[in-house]
């Protein structure tokens, strides 16, 4: 843990200074995790703040200071999930307003401003985002936590409160769907 259990206890007792210290200790890690979960650097800070607001209001529900990290991850996953759902709704309405030509022009104009390595990173993020469209948002988050964040099945079990075997099955199926989507896109020449 990045903070002492006593600090968490103090924050639970509505100590603002202790809460501040917890945020300072965890914010970078949470920002990084959210960045990988949602794949949109521009919205990361907003989602991270939402996580800490939720943490502030739910600290009294925390059973013990020892389970603080899985608890914080759970809040992070929930906030990312809510964000992905909102984004999906927004994207549907926004895309319906723009013609395909306008979208392509906007994309290429943005692309010109970046250098090659940034563009390559952007391409990887876009590719991953498009592959993630083939699995549910829940599976996307689970896959990211396991394969990108590198969390163990034990840690995932604590976050999701789901048995390890069920997680393995879910992960296997999600991987298969992503693989299938990649192969289909590759065959059709889209990547």
């Amino acid at each position, binding site marked *: 843990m990045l903070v002492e259990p006593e600090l968490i206890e103090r924050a639970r007792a509505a100590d603002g200074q202790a809460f501040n210290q917890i945020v300072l200790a965890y914010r*970078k890690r949470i920002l990084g995790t959210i960045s990988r979960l949602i794949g949109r*650097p521009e919205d990361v800070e907003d989602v991270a703040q939402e996580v800490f*607001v939720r943490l502030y209001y739910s600290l009294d529900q925390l059973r013990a200071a020892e389970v603080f990290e899985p608890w914080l991850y759970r809040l992070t996953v929930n906030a990312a999930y809510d964000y992905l759902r909102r984004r999906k709704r927004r994207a549907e309405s926004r895309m319906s307003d723009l013609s395909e030509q306008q979208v392509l022009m906007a994309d290429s104009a943005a692309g010109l401003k970046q250098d090659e390595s940034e563009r390559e*990173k952007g391409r990887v993020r876009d590719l*991953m985002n498009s592959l993630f469209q083939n699995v549910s948002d829940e599976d996307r988050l689970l896959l990211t936590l396991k*394969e990108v964040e590198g969390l163990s099945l034990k840690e995932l079990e604590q976050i999701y409160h789901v048995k390890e075997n069920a997680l393995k099955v879910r992960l296997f199926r999600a991987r298969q769907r992503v693989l299938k989507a*990649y192969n289909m896109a590759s065959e059709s020449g889209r990547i």
Partner: protein
Amino acid sequence: MSERGLDDLFERYRAACPEVEPGPNFMPSLWQKIEARQSFWSVFGRFGKRLTTASAALCLLLLALNLFFSPGALNVIPTYADALMADHSAESTDYGEAIRSNTPEAPPER
């Protein structure tokens, strides 16, 4: 693509997601959000309390009006014995008597 290729793609994705540094306004903005939500909940809580008080007062008023306009409502609820007594109507008596009148007479002695 193979399973290994997918692992490699996940690795590239990890590298492609930048490490986001918190901006200078991260903490002030966070506390603003916390306070904004706090004030929302306190307004909501005050409204809830007032609504509960008003509902309780309305209930008492309706109860008082109900008692005032129906004086019989204050009568004591009858016991089971009282209910049986009240139900002992003339109709049931007639029925009992009719049964008695139909009873066959005793056979004549030989």
